[in-house]
């Protein structure tokens, strides 16, 4: 799986994502500056976490005007896999590639801790290594991860099985106490209708090695590799 990790001014999880792909999983990966306008040579694109453009105006609001984002939109429409982590999720929402928006955490605090996540949909290229109901342990680190969408959008996400991950307790119960930021429906990650674009606030790239406290994040990248391999075999 050839993966581009897009580097915006202010990205700070780009090297972590590159490390997991290249060093941990042995996949060809490239750090690509946001001025790159052609990403057609890649199977998958990662928009990493960080504070692109200093979060000016709103988190992710300005990054969507980078040339690389036009390329991301093109490749997403062509069916390539696009994974937005944390700030990458915010950028995907601002760019309209995913519905809804991420606003200030309900408690105003920057939340930096491990959380539990229930896999709601394993029928995506990003979670096919999981089973519905599996509980993953991944870290979060954000001040603006409070997922918001209007009622109609939420109903659509739910009915189409596009809520992929939900904040839960260690036994998989989705409760208000397990919700770190006030996200509606405890939403931590969603996919687009075609399921090739996935955004999540937790950091799978920071939890792909046992040394870091959890290997659960690896499942996201392994799922993507399986999907790309299947797609290559199909062609």
């Amino acid at each position: 799986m050839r993966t581009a990790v897009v580097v915006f001014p202010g990205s700070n999880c780009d090297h972590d994502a590159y490390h997991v792909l290249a060093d941990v999983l042995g996949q060809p990966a490239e750090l690509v500056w946001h001025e790159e306008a052609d990403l057609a040579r890649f199977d998958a694109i990662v928009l990493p976490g960080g504070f692109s453009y200093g979060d000016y105006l709103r988190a992710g609001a300005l990054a969507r005007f980078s040339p690389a984002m036009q390329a991301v939109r093109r490749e997403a429409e062509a069916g390539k896999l696009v994974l937005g982590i944390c700030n990458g999720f915010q950028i995907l929402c601002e760019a309209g590639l995913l519905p809804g928006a991420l606003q200030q955490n309900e408690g105003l605090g920057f939340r930096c801790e491990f959380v539990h996540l229930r896999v709601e949909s394993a029928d995506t290229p990003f979670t096919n290594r999981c089973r519905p109901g599996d509980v993953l342990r991944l870290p979060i680190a954000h001040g603006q991860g409070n997922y918001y969408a209007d009622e109609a959008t939420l109903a659509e996400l739910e009915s189409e099985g596009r809520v992929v991950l939900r904040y839960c307790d260690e036994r998989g119960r989705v409760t208000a106490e397990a919700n770190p930021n006030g996200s509606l429906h405890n939403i931590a990650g969603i996919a687009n209708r075609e399921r090739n674009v996935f955004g999540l606030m937790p950091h799978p790239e920071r939890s792909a090695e046992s040394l870091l406290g959890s290997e659960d994040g690896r499942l996201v990248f392994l799922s993507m590799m399986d999907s790309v391999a299947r797609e290559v075999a199909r062609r």
Partner: protein
Amino acid sequence: MRFQAIVTITLKPGVLDPQGTAVKRALASLGYDRVGEVRVGKHVVVELEASDRAEAEAQAREMAWRVLANPVLETFRTSVEPLEHQAGEAV
């Protein structure tokens, strides 16, 4: 003509405003206990060139809709005033 557009952005009614809630609590701790809801927003000042006020207003609204505000969460209002420079004057 040159205009100054002021775009005021706030969270939509009904969207929880954590900053506003925190500010309300701070006001209460100062003794302002008759304060109702507090909403925090943004104030963006844009200078722009347009042939008349209607065009300036239309441009400001388009900018607000496309980037200055996020229509999922936020609402905005615009007000436009001509700047004092005369048309054709070097700026």
